[in-house]
């Protein structure tokens, strides 16, 4: 058995098994995130939310999935067929492949690569293609406007996310995600780098096109934005991709600032709980704030959105990066 597992075919089997072991929980989490969002929004607005399908409406995500599958896929006659079908697949695919490098617990990443954080940054910056291709291929004015907004917005906020990541990397001295979490054993980075954590979180909202930055969808002006023309499964893939991206950005925030799988206090009762449970709890906390923000804030106007990204976050994160570098250099805390 050991001989087979070491052979190329065995490695392939192990990788497939690992991938399934990671992606199946992620997909179930995506399904229940849609349920949790409706429940939390309902609670905030003094309603009940889904409560008919199954106990507490717990089977609602599956009912929705079956409904989506049963519907007809409509491809507009003016659309570019190939790209129109490719765009939702691309969005979903990118949201899934990023999970390859996420360390859920010490040593549990499928691919523990040296440039893990760059890989994540690269994948998240590709997310815009799914949207922009969808908007263009639909051959519809609302979809196109949504796609253009989204392209400008995501590129803008990536810049400040990049500076935030560099600031964290300065404190770690490695691009490896596992090393980033291990560097937080003494203190989680959200305490010394609190302003950066706030900027990262708000930029993550913009990067995932979530309220209050959901201008690419902007239902009050663009009908539904870039996915107006999509129906059935192709719409479902966009929907799943968006929620999977939310979980991914929350996981990234957890790794960079909230100490990944580490327990809050490295002492007896906390260390009994396995690391991946801590990881999931922290991700859930971030997701709750995502939903909370949606229920609380009105949508930004487009020029305000751009002003926030370029005139507030970019100079501030640049300043904080230089400050962090200076402090680390002067105090001699710079990692070797």
């Amino acid at each position, binding site marked *: 058995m050991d001989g087979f597992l070491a052979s*190329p075919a065995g490695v392939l089997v192990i990788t497939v098994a690992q991938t399934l072991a990671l992606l199946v929980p992620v997909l179930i989490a995506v399904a229940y995130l849609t349920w949790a969002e409706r429940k939390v929004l309902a609670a905030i607005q003094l309603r009940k939310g889904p409560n008919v399908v199954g106990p507490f409406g717990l089977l609602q995500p599956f009912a929705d999935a079956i409904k989506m599958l049963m519907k007809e896929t409509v491809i507009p006659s003016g659309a570019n067929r190939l790209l129109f079908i490719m765009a939702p697949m691309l969005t979903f695919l990118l949201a899934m492949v990023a999970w390859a490098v996420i360390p859920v617990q010490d040593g549990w990443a499928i691919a523990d*690569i*040296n440039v893990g954080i760059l890989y994540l940054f690269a994948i998240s910056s590709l997310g815009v293609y799914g949207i*922009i291709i969808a908007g263009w291929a639909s051959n519809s004015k609302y979809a196109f406007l949504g796609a*253009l907004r989204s392209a400008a917005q*995501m590129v803008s906020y990536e810049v400040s996310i990049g500076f935030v990541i560099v600031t964290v990397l300065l404190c770690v001295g490695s691009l490896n995600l596992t090393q980033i979490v291990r560097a937080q054993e003494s203190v989680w980075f959200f305490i010394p780098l609190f302003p950066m954590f706030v900027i990262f979180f708000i930029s993550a909202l913009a990067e995932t096109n979530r309220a209050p930055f959901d201008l690419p969808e902007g239902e009050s002006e663009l009908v539904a934005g870039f996915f107006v023309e999509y129906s059935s499964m192709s719409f479902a893939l966009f929907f799943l991709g968006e929620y999977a991206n939310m979980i991914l950005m929350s996981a990234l925030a957890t790794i960079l600032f909230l100490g990944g799988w580490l327990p809050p206090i490295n002492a007896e009762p906390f260390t009994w709980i396995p690391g991946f449970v801590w990881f999931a709890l922290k991700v859930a906390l971030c997701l709750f704030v995502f939903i909370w923000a949606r229920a609380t804030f009105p949508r930004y106007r487009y*020029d*305000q959105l751009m002003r926030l990204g370029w005139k507030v976050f970019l100079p501030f994160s640049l300043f904080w990066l230089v400050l962090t570098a200076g402090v680390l250099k002067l105090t001699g805390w710079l990692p070797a």
Partner: protein
Amino acid sequence: MIAAAAFYLFAAILIASAVMVVTARNPVHSVLFLILAFFNAAALFLIAGAEFLAMILVIVYVGAVAVLFLFVVMMLDIDFARLREGFQRYAPIGAIVGGILFLELVLVLGAWTFADQAEALRIAPTPPSPVTNTEALGLLLYTDYIYLFQAAGLILLVAMIGAIVLTLRGRPAMRRQNIAVQIARSGSVAAEKVPVGAGIRELGIRRPPPPEETRRLAEPAHGEADHGERH
């Protein structure tokens, strides 16, 4: 063996998509093929063991440059008939430039020989060392080549300033929101608590008439026209 097969696969897709960039009729398709070409180039970097360069290629070119490129190409209204207009006239010049480039390539390939250490480098592009790829690049860039690196940065800065100067034009008619002024404003806008209904009485806003009066108004009777103008 797997690495070699992967290399030929990615290289073949790279060349095919590069050809498609030039030959595709639709400019948007051209840009998408360009993105595919970038991806395959990144994969080739990965096979060569340069993971940092591969990721930077994807982040900078695919994640930022190509997005803006796609953005511009989608927005532009390109007239294909006008683009092909001068084809006959410019074809000879194009052919001459292409011919010179081709000749240069032939000359370079003709004089190509293996360097002494090239064979060893081919077998192991990244020598086994405790230093990671990223660190090795940094050690070189920020020590031996620091002036060249800074010069490259300056050139990019000049290009950036140039682009901003080209597009910046003062538009006095445009209305701008100054958030700092809005927040700093005090006195002119303030919330105060007033008894319920006070605003309605003071301002003399007319309330809808009570139901029985409505019924009376509905029956038209002469001499009762000023009945509705109650203050």
